[in-house]
């Protein structure tokens, strides 16, 4: 690897790194949207009035790219209705009124895994999706036909977003679960090379993973510079293996599978206990939060309940986010639930979330000079203004992972990521139109 990719030095603010996760009690209700993953919405298999226990299947996956959903509390299904998701679309959601007992379902039992197909089926059934934030169904990543295609399994422990420490806590507190999952993957899929990528600002997590590596010859810990976005999938692959994933291709096309460390730990837990993904460790932080902590929360718990568990707010939050401040999603109100892929909920104070005043572009190049994918946001903005699809394609706008380095740096406070999203949508639309035209020919 000749050069490392560009990035930015974001403030770390890992205030909660030394705080082991505390478990929150059962909330009054949980709301489970049928979309907590990339892909098709899951289909409810329970009716209003049904009694469910922790781990009861409440929705089955629909098609390959989808994921089943399980009850995260015991109680009664009180409502199945549409809900507005943070991306603006609507999806059905199941509301469960908790009975406060957290009774575990009788269906929860460790899966029988004897070969690779069993393992992939177990991961599918566990309802585990990419817990780093993307929410891509995890089993699909391993279901590559011939497992020998997987040359390297890269475990993502970079955790490059400010504030978030839930992955750090996984690496510190759940190394056993991770090791169990790794052994299963080695045994049944024949994976021989496992690289754990961690930013160098997490000394304890590195030590914990090095201990794990000492007991497993396949595992190597890669200590990486703390340079955001180190945990971006293609960035991590490049920095741990030196491989470049071509634009428009998947990691598996270069023989890599990337799996977040918490995702891995969840696989380990499922294999040992049979408890599907029903709870999540989230970092609760931000200037407006009274007592920042790492909290283990039943999936579907309203953010407001989690914030209340952390002592509420010291000041009115300006912004509440799912995820970190660089790529997180701002939510309109705190009644929305913790999702499968939620790794942090942040309540930022006015000072933290202060937007920069938007002024004219200086062509200073700070955006392009910090883009890990060597894109030119300035040129993209210009091409989008002209609605020049051809130019946008030439500028490879679609490879943008929306890490936010450009907009973070822009001295003129220009909304570059917003612009990239609009440009990407424009390119997608134009491509679909082109395809439709060709089809009618």
């Amino acid at each position, binding site marked *: 690897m*000749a050069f490392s990719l560009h990035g930015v030095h974001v403030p770390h603010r890992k205030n909660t790194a030394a705080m082991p996760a505390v478990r929150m009690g059962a909330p009054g209700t949980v709301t489970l949207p049928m979309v907590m993953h990339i892909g098709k919405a899951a289909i409810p298999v329970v009716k209003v009035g049904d009694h469910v226990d922790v781990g009861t299947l409440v929705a089955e996956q629909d098609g390959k790219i989808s994921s089943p959903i399980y009850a995260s509390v015991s109680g009664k299904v009180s409502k199945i209705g549409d809900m507005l998701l943070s991306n603006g679309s609507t999806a059905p959601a199941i509301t469960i009124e908790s009975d406060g007992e957290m009774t575990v379902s009788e269906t929860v039992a460790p899966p029988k895994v004897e070969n690779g197909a069993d393992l992939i089926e177990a991961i599918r059934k566990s309802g585990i999706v990419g817990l780093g934030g993307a929410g891509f169904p995890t089993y699909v990543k391993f279901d590559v036909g011939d497992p020998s295609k997987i040359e390297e399994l890269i475990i993502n422990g970079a955790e490059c977003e400010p504030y978030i420490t839930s992955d750090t806590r996984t690496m510190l507190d759940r190394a056993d679960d991770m090791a169990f999952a790794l052994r299963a993957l080695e045994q049944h899929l024949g994976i021989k090379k496992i690289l754990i990528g961690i930013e160098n600002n997490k000394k304890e997590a590195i030590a914990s993973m090095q201990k794990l590596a000492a007991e497993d010859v396949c595992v190597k810990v890669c200590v990486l510079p703390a340079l955001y976005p180190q945990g971006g999938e293609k960035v991590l692959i490049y920095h741990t293996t030196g491989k*470049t994933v071509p634009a428009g291709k998947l990691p598996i096309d270069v023989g890599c599978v990337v799996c977040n460390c918490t995702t891995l730990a969840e696989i380990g837990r499922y294999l040992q206990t049979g408890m599907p993904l029903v709870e999540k460790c989230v970092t609760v932080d931000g200037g407006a939060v009274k007592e920042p902590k790492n909290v283990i929360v039943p999936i579907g718990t309203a953010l407001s309940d989690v914030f209340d568990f952390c002592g509420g707010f010291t000041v009115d939050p300006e*912004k509440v986010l799912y995820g970190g401040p660089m790529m997180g999603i701002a939510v309109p109100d705190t009644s929305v639930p913790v999702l499968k892929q939620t790794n942090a909920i942040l309540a930022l104070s006015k000072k933290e979330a202060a937007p920069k005043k938007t002024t004219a572009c200086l062509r200073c190049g700070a955006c392009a000079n910090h883009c890990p994918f060597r894109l030119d946001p300035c040129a993209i903005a210009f091409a989008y203004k002209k609605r020049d699809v051809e130019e946008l394609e030439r500028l490879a706008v679609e*490879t943008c992972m929306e890490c936010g380095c450009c*907009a*973070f740096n822009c001295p*003129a406070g220009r909304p570059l990521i917003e612009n990239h999203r609009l440009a990407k949508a424009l390119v997608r639309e134009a491509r679909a139109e082109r395809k439709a035209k060709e089809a009618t020919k």
Partner: protein
Amino acid sequence: MDSKLHVSASPHIHSARTTQSIMLDVVIALLPAAIAGVILFGLSALAVIVCCVAVSVLSEFVFNLILKKEQTVGDLSAVVTGLLLALNLPANVPLWQAGVGSVFAIIVVKCLFGGLGHNLVNPAITARVFMLVAFGSMAQAAFPLDTVAGATPLVELAAGNSPSLMDLFLGKTGGAIGETCTLALLIGGIYLLCRRVIQWHLPVAFIGTVFLFTLALVGFDFVTALAWTLSGGLFLGAIFMATDYVTSPATPLGMFVFGVLAGVLTVVIRFFGNYPEGVSFAILFMNIMTPFIDKWTARKPFGTGGVKA
């Protein structure tokens, strides 16, 4: 209370750097040269500086006022333009000429093209060239032979006399207010590098090319080549004018190309042209070339064949 939550696209935090803070850094970096100019050339230098800065800021203010545009003088870019122009003028320039030059820089070169970020060429450089051409006396004033500024070293060098290198380094020679004291300019340049306002590629390529090219032309006489390099507006131009974001390439490779070509042009004009100094013309020409350099030196996006594993 939840209805008060602010929703916007990521990222939700930003670096502390703003256009204003960048401009402020440039002003700070120019202060050593300005102070040196006042020490070397006296209070008339101060008058020129104050005149250019005041007229520049006022021009932009009035322009925005008349055209009912959002007021932009707060970004401090007009201060930078005024200061740069003043440092490019001799201390004995008539103040009315300095004022006209400032109005030209701000109104014609910057505002009429759409304001900061939209100008094709550097306002201060263009105004200097405009004054050189427009005011007959200006051509003499820029390279005067009178008592205030003294003979510029470039004229002396062309005549075959070599000024002392130490005098050139400290600025005890004739020339424009801010261009003679290389030491002060270097201090400002190092400040800008440390603050990461500019990158080294352009100034180093520019100054390095002038030195090497001159070295070849003077028969590898090290001292004479160094004297040529330390003379004229090279350091002021290479560190402060050519690095103007708006009118120079955005990538390090592009900056390097810009620097080398500007260096070659400067030497060609100095040795073979009608004017004793070529820095301004070289930068102005390269400003116009910048869009092409940007096009030729664009990076290949990751995964599109740029870097192989």
